């Protein structure tokens, strides 16, 4: 056991957890933010993607301990109060989600991809989403959403 402190959606969270606690379990079970999902056990599906110091990370793949002192944003921290993030808005406008289970990870991955590359192309979007599996949408509308989100975030494509 050991104490872990990190910043989660702008708020300092300190918990006493077992050393082998995964970051995703710290977020879901210990802090109680359940928007970050677990869809597999091999770091393939991407439902658990969060931002750690601005970088998208699969929260099932690192220990909470490794995130000590980090600044973490989850899907719950993306909107500005009631105002959706442009990428969330784009997913809504373009029907980029159906059952919603993969959506938090998709949106978090998309935001990071577009932040790094505002003029992202369709091929780059498809390649960039390789680590996020969706079973409902066939990705067509997710790709449209990311394109539209990129435009809202200042991209030219």
């Amino acid at each position, binding site marked *: 056991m050991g104490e872990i402190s990190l910043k989660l959606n702008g708020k300092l969270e300190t918990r006493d957890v077992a050393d082998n606690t995964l970051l995703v379990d710290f977020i*879901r079970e210990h802090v109680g933010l359940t928007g970050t999902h677990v*869809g*597999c056990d091999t770091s*393939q599906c991407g439902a658990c993607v969060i931002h750690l110091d601005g970088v998208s990370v699969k929260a099932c793949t690192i220990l909470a301990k490794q995130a000590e002192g980090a600044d973490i944003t989850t899907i719950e921290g993306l909107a500005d109060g009631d105002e959706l993030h442009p990428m969330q808005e784009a997913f809504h406008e373009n029907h980029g989600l*159906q059952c919603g289970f993969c959506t938090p990870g998709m949106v978090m991955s998309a935001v990071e991809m577009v932040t790094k590359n505002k003029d992202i192309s369709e091929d780059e979007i498809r390649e960039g989403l*390789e680590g996020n599996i969706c*079973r409902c*949408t*066939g990705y067509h509308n997710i790709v449209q959403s990311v394109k539209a989100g990129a435009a809202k975030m200042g991209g030219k494509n």
Partner: protein
Amino acid sequence: MNEVTKIDGIGSSVRRTEDKKFLTGKGKYTDDINRPGQVQAYFLRSDVAHAKIKKIDIKNAQSAPGVIGVFTGDDIAADKVGGPICGWVVPCRDGSATKEPPHPLLAQGKVRFVGDAIAVVLAETAEQAKSGAELIDVDYEELSPVVDFENAGDGAQIHDEVPNNCYFDWELGDEKATADALSGAKKIVKLRVRNNRLVPNAMEPRCALAEFDNLDDSYTLHTTSQNPHLTRLVLAAFMFAIPESKLRVIAPDVGGGFGSKIYVYIEEAVCVWASKKVGRPVKWTADRTQAFLTDCHGRDHVNDVQLGLDENNKIVGLRVDTVCNLGAYLSAFSVVVPTYLHGTLLSGQYDIPAIYTNVKGMATNTVNVDAYRGAGRPEATYLLERTMETAAREVGMDPAEFRRINFIPKDAFPYQTQVALQYDIGDYEPHLDKAMEMIDYSNFEKRRAEAAKRGMYRGIGISSYIEACGLAPSAVVGALGGRVGLWESASVRVNPTGTISVFTGSHSHGQGHATTFAQIVADKLGIPMENVEVVHGDTDKTPFGMGSYGSRSLASGGSAISKAVDKIINKSKKIAAHLLEASEDDIDFKDGKFVVGGTDKEKAFGEIALAAYVPHNYPLETLEPGLEENAFYDPTNFVYPSGTHIAEVEVDPATGVVQVVDWAACDDFGNLVNPMIVEGQVHGGIAQGIGQALLEDAHYDENGQLLTASYMDYCMPRADDLPSFKVGYTTTPSTVNDLGVKGCGEAGAIASPPALINAVIDALSPLGVTDMSMPATPQKVWKAIQDSQSVAAE
């Protein structure tokens, strides 16, 4: 229609009202819910495929840190809790019934597949439960595993009740007429196809949270279900023998189903049982490996097809002999999927005067096989559309034209097939024509030639499918061996201020019912959509309903809502007549207003609602106050969506990689309520079909070990495996329901696999390749290319 309905009524691509919670991480899936004092369950599962259990030693597990209880099949049996049941059986050719072996919740004396549950460990944490389970010692006497379902009849007997490992041997159609037709045919096209085994893989793994309230002896179960009322019925009436009123089942947000969350699984029942046993809430969440091992799989058929043609290349007869794998136990709808949801679709879109099919359902030491998106209809479409393409090639006709001359003509509806179904309406040439136009079929050879210059093989493939959905007329279901009715329910409550609460027996797990159903109500009542709330998924709130599968939610559930709204309008007219001092017959309802015909006297819908609940001026002597109506809608026939999908691919001969370069889908779903949502359903269905055709394959080795039990080994379609899709529609409104709707959820998965494989074969046809099995992996395609070249060199 008034302006409001133009914005959000039937036919509008309204953005989904349910999106915001999912986009902000506020969805509530079962695993997001926790109860104070809950314990975690972990199931010890068999790691051998077929064995007698000589001894289970749980002693060390019982004393492990954090462990609250360890239970085995004997504990369940002592409490006389029954196992899952089969919801639909069929008669066998020899007159005997489907063989239904028992399926104990936890193994009793024998394990029958890798993943079969042997014991449950309850502990304070999931990790402690898992660690505890590792201390259970199981002594097996291993038996010979039966994995190859085609030869399962020769294998070791899996159940005492199932001789030759054959659950059923069923037939449909006229065997003699078909034999006569084939013997008189000018040409017989023969094909053997395999429909590969798939894992549904909803992204949310299954989860159950059960609690027992000892004050009133009642249970509450939160679970990942497509049909909470069916789950309640099966658990209460068949497994626990308790009144339904003592069990509340809640299926909150559910992260995809695709059929895999229809059935009651043993884990749900064990959690319910254990919650009383230990007096604490019990939670179980599958990890993905357990999902692969224990969720019902789909497909897994081998079909031998014979298609007879006359001198004009018209079909004269079709015979299909099918063997399918149903796994270790009979799951709820496992029997109906390869029989009445498969054999009845063998006429496709074609006028076939004689059809006969025989289906043998086999037991094997693999996990149960049941419905997966399309459920029987993809298998029928695959074998038929592969055969149509092969036949066209063999007689030297363009595959589109060969289909066209065999289509059921537009004026032949209603059309009675030779395999029980009567299609009410359809028009097939328009969607073939439109799909060909969408993909620029006429210029394909130019594109093939251009690709060849780049060293690539380009191919095009067609699939014209039909499906029967909107399950189902209950009397027909009953006559064919179904043990349930398949009507759907709705309760429409008008609140005193005129807002509406709709309680539906359907369940949404991605389909967008909160939006689509609200559009129907808003359109019919002429009120804004935001005034309509849709409630589903909780047996304490919603009327008894049959849930969502088989593309039935709109055709059956939406029709029930529509009927309940009609009753609301009828009652409202009576109230309006009273308030307006007019005859009920003179009241027209239009644009949300009740108007005395030919006058300017009117009452708004909201005024009627208020009068119904504040009945100060109200015909109380003839009419009850309040404004709330129920409807149970039982369809008179299936609905029959149809369409044509055309795939275009490029094959790289150096690597065998198949790239899907274009896709045109033209579907006839009847009237569309929300085209945006329909399009999303089509996209998702096509992606799953492409997954089946190119990537996915559930593979057991000869020992019954599932080799593809993770996303490292089972290839799910990713964004960069797929193209964007062109989606179009033709429309023949269904005559079966008032809304004129069909169903769109499964169509993409039904249509797409044969289109894709036909395209791959077409691409490789210059090399002499005539067959390709699913999935067309790079290795398989590359090998086909190499083999063809070595043949050419000889």
